[in-house]
């Protein structure tokens, strides 16, 4: 009797876990398919080549926002990727096991959890107020700061996978330590580090909150770092909340572009880390 009840409870628990999984995965997949479908029917060539048109006219695209996002992400990457990689090199190559490295790793993880809107207002007060106006540069700074912790941590993880023997071989040949780190260790882990950077890049590419009061958005074409600039997620935000169907269509198309970027980055990361090329040498 008792055994029977226990088997029943076991079955019920299994059923509940399966149910939870179905309840989670089904809607999530449905959302994903919905987003891709909406984007796919909305996307056309004009999206990439035309600027937005005034309300009431059909057609138009987000060419200015795509260029704007590219410029913002370029500035962000210039700030975030070198600093992040250097921080990762410190954590993996110099500071391993020290208290300082543990504190930095911990801070990076915590910084990763700070809401992006807080980054936005901090950069506003740091760059926009002294400058006196919204600018593409300040938006790039905000994105760059957000990239640092992610890049730093993935770089560290990738470097930790490089076997000691590789470093020792370099040092045994009389290569100075800095060269051994840059051209041997980092080189060995480069595939992983590059995909880590791509992941950070894809993540900040969709960030809207920190751009609202730094890059600010722009209805026209702008390439100047000192002027407000359009960005894809900002444009999606504005268009999504508008009452016009044509603008909704453009917003769906923009969402699809961001999603494709993210799918590419996430699959690349999985591919590189699962292939285990780095571990193979040990």
């Amino acid at each position: 009797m008792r055994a029977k009840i226990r088997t029943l409870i076991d079955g019920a628990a299994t059923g509940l876990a399966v149910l939870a999984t179905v309840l989670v995965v089904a809607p999530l997949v449905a959302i994903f398919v919905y987003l891709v479908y909406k984007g796919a029917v909305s996307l056309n060539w004009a999206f990439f080549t035309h600027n937005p048109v005034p309300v009431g006219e059909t057609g138009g695209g987000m060419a200015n926002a795509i260029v704007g996002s590219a410029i913002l992400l370029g500035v962000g990457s210039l700030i975030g990727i070198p600093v992040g990689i250097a921080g990762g090199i410190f954590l993996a190559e110099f500071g391993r096991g020290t208290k300082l490295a543990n504190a930095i790793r911990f801070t990076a993880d915590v910084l990763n959890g700070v809401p992006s809107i807080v980054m936005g207002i901090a950069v506003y007060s740091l760059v926009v107020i002294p400058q006196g106006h919204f600018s593409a540069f300040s938006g790039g700074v905000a994105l760059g700061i957000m990239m640092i912790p992610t890049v730093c941590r993935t770089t560290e993880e990738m470097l930790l996978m490089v076997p000691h023997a590789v470093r020792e071989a370099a040092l045994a040949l009389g290569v100075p330590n800095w060269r051994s780190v840059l051209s041997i260790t980092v080189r060995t882990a480069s595939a992983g580090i590059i995909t880590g950077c791509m992941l950070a890049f894809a993540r900040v590419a969709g960030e809207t909150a920190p751009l609202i009061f730094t890059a600010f958005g722009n209805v026209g074409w702008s390439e100047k770092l000192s002027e407000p600039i359009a960005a894809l997620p900002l444009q999606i935000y504005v268009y999504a909340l508008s009452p016009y169907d044509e603008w909704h269509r453009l917003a769906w198309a923009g969402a699809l572009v961001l999603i494709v970027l993210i799918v590419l980055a996430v699959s690349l990361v999985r591919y590189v880390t699962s292939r285990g090329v780095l571990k193979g040498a040990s």
Partner: protein
Amino acid sequence: MVIAQVPEIHIHQSELLPESGLPDNRPTEQSAQQKASAIRAYLLSRGNSALADRGFHWLMVLCALSIFGIVVLIAFELMERSKLAWGAFGLDFFYKAYIDTFSGKPMYWDPVNSHFSALPFLYGTLVSSILALLLAVPLAIGVAVFLTEMCPGFLRAPLAFITELLAAIPSVIYGFWAVSALVPLMKVYVNPALIKTLGWTGLFADDNPTGLGFLTSGIILAIMILPIVSSLTREVMTAVPSSQREAVLALGATRWEMIRTGVLRNARIGIVGAIILGLGRALGETMAVAMVIGNSPQIQRSLLANGSTMSAVIANEFAEASSDLHLSALMELGLALFIVTIIVNAFARMLVWMVTRGTPSSVH
């Protein structure tokens, strides 16, 4: 002569060992590693191009330290800019409301008369985040249990991939989906049903026909934090040694009993950490919430009423703040959000760490 020097260098080896925590029962590999590290330490000590090496070392340290710098700089800037509001309202900002002398009603956020109180935003942030946790946590744990303990191998990788993908989709896209699909659904089906069946509790009042509000933002937040909570829970559950599982099974337990006593109980600190980390995400989530919560600074008992959160009000009002005091009050909200998320995240990371760092877990 050179060989004779090598053993002395063993002093430095502790720094060079990987701290990934190799289990103690693999002595052969570890000693091989130690030997290798000693050679490395010896080579490092020869001081080959010492100046370049030292410069490189310090450059890397500097970049790593910049992470500290960023945190300090953010805190400093926000404190500087929120001084005005702090001077005007002090601590009252967080718990007192200004009572309108004519109507006798509390006025929380009134840019026209320069009266600011964070109360409705604290309330909105808390209510929407708690709703999100209530919805997401049981499901997330169920998914994690399924994936680690029951799932057939061929399903595991694709499911993990999907979770990772969904965690990376931008907030604004979730918000757009919510506005165009979830809000109409709530408006037409869910809200009327809730009002009909649970209206007597007072939690579901029939005075907001828009479909926006606390409940809708709670649902979208739950969808957004599910991936992170479930993948972290999975991580801590995987960290429980399989000897625990085998021991419980050997005593004749069913699979569920094994999961409950052998896995969940050992991983509970880490699971709490994962939940708190999800809370941290929910507290700071901005765009999706700003799009569906209705954005009105009020405190309502009904979960279907419009509200606002700390991050949503910053996103909505910051760019067009009407006065210096208004801007300063928004900065103070940002500072409060910053401090709260730092504390929540630090606490959660520590809890997750305690489990995955291989502290000995014990059966109770």
